[in-house]
């Protein structure tokens, strides 16, 4: 099988997995507790790294752009630039990449280990559908927590940018905040929420699929974990481009 056919097959299998998970989501018994547990692991568990990366990303954005803006005499636009970059692009993408590294790898390693130790077979033999018990709760948890994490990253990133602007460059916080408020529109925020929803679906489905299709023992678990992280990261970045374009058209954003 050549690479193109294999990739197409994987896309098909991953989509079918998501469709199955979605169909089974509302059937009884519902795994609400499982979903809440996963939201805790995925959402609350990722909050620290998201806050850290968000803060320093916002900070470095100010650090790098302030001097350039100052050269053109536009340093009071720093907040505008930082907020816009964060809300539109860096917030969703960075959060998605961090969650891929932390959660996507964990999902695929956990499911992969369950496959090689026959726990998935055991689950099926005991009359439980692994898609409903394992895949659906993880997808739902990602779907709910990734946008929330993204918002957290955006807010903390703006605080980081503001901190650098006021502490290192002596800008007043009032100037920074007013340019932030001037900079971001409601449409930007909507776009900033739609993106993580799509990313959540991509990361969740790829990681679950890679985990469940593990073969070849412990080496296979390593392979599928690597593959889940690499594939999810690439797909997130590619999807970001097309989403950005689509959102420009749909929300009628300026094309620059």
């Amino acid at each position, binding site marked *: 099988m050549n690479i193109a056919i294999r990739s197409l097959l994987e896309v098909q299998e991953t989509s079918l997995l998501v469709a199955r998970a979605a169909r089974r989501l509302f059937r009884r*018994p519902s795994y609400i507790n499982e979903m809440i547990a996963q939201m805790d692991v995925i959402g609350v568990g990722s909050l620290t790294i998201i806050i850290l990366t968000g803060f320093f990303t916002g900070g470095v954005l100010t650090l790098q752009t302030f001097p350039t803006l100052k050269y053109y005499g536009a340093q009071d636009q720093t907040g505008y630039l930082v907020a816009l970059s964060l809300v539109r692009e860096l917030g969703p993408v960075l959060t998605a990449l961090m969650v891929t590294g932390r959660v996507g790898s964990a999902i695929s390693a956990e499911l992969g*280990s369950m496959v090689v*130790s*026959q*726990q998935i*077979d*055991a*689950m*099926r*033999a*005991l*009359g*439980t*559908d692994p898609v409903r018990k394992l895949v659906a709760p993880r997808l739902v948890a990602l779907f709910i927590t990734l946008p929330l994490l993204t918002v957290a990253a955006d807010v903390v990133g703006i605080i980081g940018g503001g901190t650098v602007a006021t502490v290192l460059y002596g800008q007043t916080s009032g100037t920074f905040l007013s340019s932030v408020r001037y900079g971001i529109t409601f449409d930007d925020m909507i776009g900033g929420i739609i993106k993580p929803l799509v990313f959540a679906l991509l990361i969740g489905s790829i990681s679950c699929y890679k985990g469940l299709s593990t073969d070849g023992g412990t080496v296979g678990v390593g392979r599928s974990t690597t593959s889940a992280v690499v594939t999810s990261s690439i797909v997130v970045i590619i999807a970001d481009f097309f989403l950005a374009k689509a959102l420009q058209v749909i929300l009628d954003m300026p094309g620059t």
Partner: protein
Amino acid sequence: MASTDIEVSNPPEAQAADNRVSAAAAESTFAAENDSERAIPAIEFRDVHLSFDDRKVLNGLSFKVAKGETKIILGGSGGGKSTVIKLVLGLLKPDSGRILVNGEDITDYTEAEMMRVRKNFGMVFQEGALFDSLSVYENVAYRLHEQGIPEDEVEQEVRRMLRFVNLEDAIDKMPAELSGGMRRRVGIARALVGGPTIVMFDEPTAGLDPPTARTICELAIKLRDLEDVSSIFVTHEMNNVEYLSREFAAVNDAGEVIFEQEGERLCLINTKVIMMKEGHIIFSGTDEMLKRAEDPYIHRFLRGH
């Protein structure tokens, strides 16, 4: 087996006569119990073929497991033994042929329909396949929790099952704290919750020390003789065959379970052996017949050279 002790050779006509005798014996047993349901095999394979990519795993496999019978499937690694169990459970689907469970053709069942059929099954996996994230109690209770049974009933049943495998003390432990043998016994307890009528063992004694392996075999014997469970017992260890086809479990006057060798009392041990090689059956019969079989592969298998 006691019924074959009188047999001295294994020509086809003698085998046919033996079959007639056991058929007659079976008929009289069924007539006495007046239970025509028992005549339907618990599991039946009809000319089952299965390939993975271009490797043929099963090549026209046909056999039956009668109600209450233990069928030992022997064979070397990669001979398709575990695949048979996966097919019965519907974890795999055959390329062609039919698979029947209690007379019901499950070959074309969807996953949802299989979920219903699987309620009849208990499955003991090679390494136990316990859920690492759940305690022993939660592992054994898994099926009952999924069915939403009230917790006090669940606890009663879990304790009963753990007593059956002699592991009630380990109830609060996590799988990682258990030894290999204990993990498998918990796996057996988990498989038996809900009272399955068919239990499948996938190399349950592989890699265990002899006393622990013996304990596992005793559990299988207890299931066969005291609980009337049909089972498939996949193994490649000859001492398992020895235990399962030479010993039986009974309850003595004090109410304790005891194991006796055949011959001490008249008994009819309900265990048959089939031997697989390269996806088809090269031998089917009792352990006595297996020992007398002339196939060079079986010779090598029994003696190791």
